[in-house]
């Protein structure tokens, strides 16, 4: 724990922070305890606009827990979260998603018995007219429902086209091959039109060729949609080649942060992640 005067300074800074669009995600002193275990311990970092930011670390280091904290699936024990200069600590997941943070899941969470198209259309939820009046308009097919529906389908088809699944838009998501499911999940996340995209182990279960393609694909996403990307990945070469900056977690703590070259040669990282067998 930092001494109290430092905390106070932090708080003063927090109050002063203007709406700073450059700092897309600002994680401050994020801490999460499970029983006696500190899964994430006092982690702070900033993700800048347009970055591809990598989060690596050995298993159990707290990477996915951090993702869950950022997207509100679990609440921090202490610490604050800022998105584009605005604090959102303690908000519910759907609010955070509506604000513009989308994610994929480590163990793929598609809506398995729905079609690929429906999976993507669901994520257009926040971009269509809703509420009780939306329900009534929709059931009676009154404006703006028909137009909304047409646009939703068109946009979803575009995204499916982009990930190469348009031809199988009507196939149930659970019938897709593993790699296709990962791509569908990304298309679904993009349908939210997020400003920040969190990818949890996007390369898991892909072969070497697919991994190569994935790097280009992620870069393309960043450029085409002008989004910021935060990703967890186990496959070290992929992360090193792809990310602008990398944060390394070990036992819930941030042990290194910087550009790939620096992180790669950081002795603490080598010891924690690769093991010291000397």
């Amino acid at each position, binding site marked *: 724990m930092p001494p109290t005067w430092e905390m106070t300074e932090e708080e003063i800074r927090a109050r002063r922070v203007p709406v700073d669009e450059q700092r897309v995600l600002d994680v401050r002193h994020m801490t999460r305890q499970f029983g006696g275990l500190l899964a994430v311990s006092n982690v702070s970092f900033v993700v800048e606009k347009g970055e591809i930011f990598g989060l690596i670390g050995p298993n159990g280091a707290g990477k996915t827990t951090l993702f869950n904290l950022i*997207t509100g*699936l679990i609440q921090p024990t202490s610490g604050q979260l800022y998105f584009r200069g605005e604090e959102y600590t303690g908000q*519910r*997941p*759907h*609010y955070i*998603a*509506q604000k513009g943070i*989308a*994610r994929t*899941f480590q163990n793929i*969470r*598609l*809506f*398995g*018995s*729905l*079609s690929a*198209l*429906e999976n993507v*259309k*669901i*994520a257009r*939820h*926040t971009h*269509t*007219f*809703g509420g*009780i009046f*939306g*329900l009534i308009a*929709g*059931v*009676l*097919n009154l404006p703006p*429902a028909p137009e*909304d*529906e*047409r646009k*939703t*389908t*068109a946009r979803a*088809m575009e995204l499916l086209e982009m990930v190469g699944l348009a031809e199988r*838009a*009507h196939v149930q998501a659970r019938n897709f091959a593993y790699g296709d499911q990962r791509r569908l999940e990304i298309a*679904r996340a993009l349908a*939210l039109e997020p400003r920040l995209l969190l990818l949890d182990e996007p390369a898991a279960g892909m072969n070497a060729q697919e991994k190569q393609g994935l790097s280009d694909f992620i870069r393309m996403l960043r450029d085409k949609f002008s989004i910021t990307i935060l990703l967890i990945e186990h496959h070290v070469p992929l992360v090193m080649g792809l990310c602008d900056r990398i944060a390394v977690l070990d036992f819930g703590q941030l042990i290194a942060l910087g550009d790939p070259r620096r992180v790669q040669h950081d002795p603490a990282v080598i010891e924690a992640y690769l093991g010291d067998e000397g």
Partner: protein
Amino acid sequence: MNSFLLISMILAAMLALSLYLPLMAGQLSLASPGFYALGGYIAAVMSTKYFVVTGPFPVLYLLAEMAAAGAACGVLALVVGIPALRLRGIYLALATIAFVEILRVLSLNLEITGGAVGIFGIPQPFSDRGSYLWIAIPLLLLSMGFIYRLERIRTGRAFAAIREDELAAAAMGISPTFNKVLAFMLGAILAGVVGALSAHVLNTWNARQGTFDSSINYLAYVLIGGSRTFVGPVVGGMALTALPELLRALADVGGLPVWLAEFLRNGRLIIFGVLIALGTVFFPQGMVTPELLARLFGRRLRRAEQVASTQPVDHGAQRR
């Protein structure tokens, strides 16, 4: 077929739909009998205490009661749903069973509900029971039409997303609480409206209406009928309501051995129970599945798809 059985079948179909609505959002609620009972009491009290008329009871009053019952049940569902829908799976089912039981004990003891005796002599708008079909059939078609549309729009998709994976749905910007409570309310409103109509059909209303047993019966309607399309609960509700009567009718067929006719008359509920158990074993998807519907109405679907290939339209028809 007598008209009372037909009305009972239609009411059962709608009660099954009232359970299907929350199930669309993945919520196993067994609260429908409670709202059904409440709706019935609202109609019974209104018609015997406030809408006192000479001569036949105006249909307009009946419709007003149904609206009032729906509104009251909707509000109660909102109040109960917000805390209760934090529960998942079997826990929600048990909480709603508790809700139904609490309502039942209340209605047994309150003065306004007529205690254990209940309320009887509920006025009749029609001279014969068959005429209720003029209300029951349009109401069924209306609720089926509503759900048909619902499954094809934003809200229905949000329900489906929550049913599939609540956390992932939340991560897509869908508020689980709002949509779960909405689905729960829609089911409650339907059950309340049906209860109001039912009170008039039955002419009397008491605490035996809407008990724990009926919660499980409605669940059987939905699951035996098929829970993956709204056609399933409708078919299930109708079939399971008709089945015991069908077995009774079988007993009167001439030429049966005496013991068999006897068994069909007195033991028909044994057969009913066995058929429910066998139904789940042999038709785990229920009698009606989306695939079956696609086969039956296949031609129309294919045409819809051809339209799709030229211009983007909704393909909700192929859901689930």
